[in-house]
């Protein structure tokens, strides 16, 4: 009877979950990438996107093009791709003394926006622009729809520009005839601009295809597509007829049907091969990783360490206040929460601490509270935990002990949160009863390998300089520090770098080659004395002097007003700087200037996008605005883009027309087995130019005061008991 019941139960409940079985029959179904570095079929794009917070790389070899791309998903509806294409039927230039025999390299930026998410009946629909603000060698726009049907993923789309084979009438002409004409490329321009009067103009082509998932093959998919690419119009497709740099045309299309396969080695890593145009075999790979979620293993590997014999410790602490303070000092320091001050006033225990282990400030405060809960005598009913960074108070967290303790076992952080008050704090050095002596000066340092690179220049695609770097910070007092970064070269290939600056502005950045080549053996990147002040709650200040960054030394100051419970901050900074010698030691060049900005920050509370606008005078004495938009995910992974417009002309700025770029911060504890606040930062500007160049002084107050803001805690309430 029992067996029959189980069979019946199984039969009844397995039907509705059949769809989930497909996840096991066809695993690893994340979208694959086209050879152009966008989620797609083989050459054609699809309406698919990866999950938000994903980061991917894609590489493909499709003769004559080698293409490498970085693809980011700041939102579930937005795909942003930045890539380099090595064009192997053209030289970088026809001047061999300038670029030797190097092939042409093209930078490109693509976006795809999902307009409609797939439902049971309707397809996912997306619109995309390829080579959005580059040299337009591969420019195309498309509107595309994708729909799953069982294990088939069908795609159908309309393409403009290089995707317009077929030359059908532009359906947008119902809005006017103006869209029927597509103006030619930006002749005489500096590139890098958004040419809005070209997008979705001219004739259209039709493309489509299907990805068929093969059952029980780890997600292997066979792909076939109808390709609407005008291959002879892409880049230098016509050979010398297209450009004097090109030395042969690309092979023309013999078939519009492409086919191939993608094999997911695992859910992240895909390899692919295909046959396109009826005459070209190509292959590639991609790797995509969702970095938006926290590394859950960290908590398991590094749980809060309980106090040994806590009940005895509590009894001893109740007998003598000094024992209690020393017990707090010992137990917090053992866990790398460094006690600065402590005070008991009736039933309130106030503890000021600093830490550099946890990126989640809620987690750090929660773990400090756990220690205090375990060792505090019974008469203590409230913990007042104050966090100190650079000698400045970041926040104070008033915790009801009973509530914290009661909700600890069940991890009911939402209930506990009702009895926790977080507010701004001014650090009063003398108002604490227990001031443990600190052995100033204290020296923190790391020695680690670093890499300096120069990518995509005419004299070679990749130049690198592997170095051994000393990063140190000497604390003379809690708010006075000397930050040093110095390195020695291990190996490099910088000798062949020869690109001289062509900038007509002061060479505040474009002498990068001189700096790299003259500092190969050893250099000092930073030698900066910092003094931090916190005159009132919500107001923070920094004064710095020394070698402030790689190319400038000087003196200056930054102030920030950051109201704790508001979503904005306003700052100002002013610097008098002098350009450093190319050898990156203590010598200086003649160029002196004053630079400064008013900085405005706003965090949009729902999406947690940070908008930062800086207005003022830049290093090359140009004035204007710089905009930075970034999104931080729960894990600490952050994606950002920036651009600047100043009072210089496009001609003065040079190639690229204006300053722009992107960056991302990947928290290293995503990959680590221990908690760390360190991040891996990677950023890229398509071109290094002199216009809109800010001073890169370290320790920006917005970053230093990250935890001096309610949003920082609200996003991480669930870390309270972690």
């Amino acid at each position, binding site marked *: 009877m029992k067996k029959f019941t*189980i069979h019946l139960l199984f039969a009844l409940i397995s039907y509705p979950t059949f769809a989930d079985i497909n996840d096991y029959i066809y695993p690893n179904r994340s979208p694959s990438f086209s050879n152009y570095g966008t989620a797609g079929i083989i050459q054609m794009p699809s309406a698919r996107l990866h999950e938000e917070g994903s980061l991917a790389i894609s590489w493909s070899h499709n003769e004559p093009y080698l293409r490498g791309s970085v693809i980011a998903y700041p939102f579930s509806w937005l795909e942003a791709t930045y890539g380099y294409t090595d064009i192997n039927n053209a030289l970088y230039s026809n001047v061999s003394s300038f670029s030797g025999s190097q092939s042409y390299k093209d930078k490109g930026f693509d976006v795809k926006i999902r307009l409609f998410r797939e439902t049971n009946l309707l397809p996912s629909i997306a619109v995309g622009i390829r080579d959005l603000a580059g040299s337009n060698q591969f420019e195309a726009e498309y509107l595309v729809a994708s729909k799953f049907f069982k294990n088939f993923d069908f795609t159908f789309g309309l393409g403009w520009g290089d995707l317009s084979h077929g030359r059908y009438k532009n359906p947008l002409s119902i809005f006017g005839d103006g869209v029927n004409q597509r103006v030619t490329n930006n002749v005489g321009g500096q590139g890098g601009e958004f040419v809005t009067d070209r997008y979705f103009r001219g004739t259209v082509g039709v493309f489509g295809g299907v990805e068929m998932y093969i059952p029980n093959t780890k997600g292997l998919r066979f792909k076939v597509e109808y390709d609407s690419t005008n291959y002879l119009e892409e880049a230098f497709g016509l050979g010398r007829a297209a450009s004097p740099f090109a030395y042969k045309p690309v092979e023309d299309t013999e078939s519009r049907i492409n086919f191939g396969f993608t094999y997911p080695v695992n859910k992240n890593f895909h390899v692919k091969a295909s046959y396109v145009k009826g005459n070209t075999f190509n292959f590639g790979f991609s790797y995509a990783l969702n970095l938006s979620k926290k590394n859950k293993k960290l908590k398991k590997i590094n749980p809060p360490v309980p106090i040994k014999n806590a009940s005895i410790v509590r009894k001893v602490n109740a007998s003598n206040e000094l024992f209690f303070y020393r017990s707090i000092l010992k137990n917090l320091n053992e866990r790398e929460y460094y006690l600065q001050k402590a005070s008991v006033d009736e039933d309130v225990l106030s503890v000021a601490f600093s830490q550099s282990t946890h990126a989640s400030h809620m987690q750090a405060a929660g773990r400090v509270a756990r220690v205090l809960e375990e060792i505090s005598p019974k008469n203590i009913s409230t913990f007042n935990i104050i966090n100190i960074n650079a000698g400045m108070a970041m926040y104070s967290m008033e915790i009801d002990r009973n509530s914290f303790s009661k909700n600890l076992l069940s991890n009911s952080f939402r209930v506990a949160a009702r009895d926790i008050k977080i507010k701004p704090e001014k650090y009063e050095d003398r108002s604490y009863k227990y001031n443990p002596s600190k052995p100033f000066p204290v020296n923190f340092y790391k020695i680690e390998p670093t*890499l300096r690179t120069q990518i995509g220049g005419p004299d070679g695609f990749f130049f690198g300089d592997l170095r051994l770097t000393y990063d140190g910070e000497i604390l003379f007092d809690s708010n006075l520090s000397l930050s040093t970064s110095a390195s020695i070269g291990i190996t490099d290939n910088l000798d062949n770098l020869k690109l001289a600056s062509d900038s007509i502005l002061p060479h505040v950045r474009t002498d990068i080659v001189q700096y790299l080549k003259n500092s190969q053996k050893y250099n000092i990147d930073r030698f900066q004395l910092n003094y931090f002040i916190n005159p009132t709650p919500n107001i923070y200040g920094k004064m710095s002097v020394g070698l402030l960054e790689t190319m400038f030394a000087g003196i200056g100051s930054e102030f920030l007003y950051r109201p704790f419970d508001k979503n904005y901050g306003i700052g100002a900074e002013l610097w008098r700087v002098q350009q450093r010698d190319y050898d990156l030691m203590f010598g200086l060049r003649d160029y002196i200037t004053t630079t400064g900005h008013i900085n405005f920050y706003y965090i949009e509370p729902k999406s947690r996008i940070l908008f930062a606008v800086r207005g003022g005078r830049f290093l090359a004495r140009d004035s204007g605005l710089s905009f930075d938009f970034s999104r931080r995910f729960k894990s600490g992974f952050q994606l950002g883009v920036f651009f600047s417009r100043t009072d210089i002309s496009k001609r003065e700025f040079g190639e690229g027309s204006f300053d722009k770029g992107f960056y991302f911060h990947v928290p290293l504890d995503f990959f*680590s087995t221990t908690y760390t606040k360190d991040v891996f930062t990677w950023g890229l500007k398509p071109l290094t130019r002199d216009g809109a160049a800010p001073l890169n002084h370290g320790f920006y107050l917005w970053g230093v005061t990250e935890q001096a803001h309610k949003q920082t805690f609200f996003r991480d309430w669930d870390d309270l008991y972690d």
Partner: protein
Amino acid sequence: MTKYFCISLLFLSSCSLVEFKDVPAVARSLIYGPPEIDVTMSSYEKVPYSFAKINIGRSGSGLMILLSINDDVYEWVGSNGEVIFTKNGKIIRTIGLEYDVNILNPKINFLNCGECYSQYFIELSNPKALINQNSFFKNSHKEKLELIKKIDATVMIENFSTSKFKWTGENIYWFDDSGQVIKSNQQIHPSLGEIEITFYYK
């Protein structure tokens, strides 16, 4: 593969903005994984309860304490609330793992059956699915197992196959003369690495 991507990511950089912190420590943990727990006679004696050392794939090892025994079902609890239920050494249910399973009919004592078949109905999580799995158990050979002391063990092999999708494999159980499983290597979920459990009874 995640590991190798991460390492290559660390070495990428560009002309404008590069930081390169903590690479040696992170690279080490990516390559070798977290440190292994070594159970010695002295550490065995220090723990007052029966416990199990568990390795899941290459994610490092952990210890779980035996919390209860009900109807031959052993309940093992980890320090972060993970729970594994075993019956005759076979994992029949897990709670709190990234990929949990629940065998709805954990029935036979396969250790004494010599050669026998069994059909299990299994609930998988992440994503949820119900499957049935056919297992064939067979006593294989005797082996000397060296844990905190040398033990003569009988090796039993379970070959399993799944009907709704292609998932086949082999689970191995080592049991001692008293019929208690002292070690096992098991695949319980298609997305989870092999689980190696060594049991230390008291």
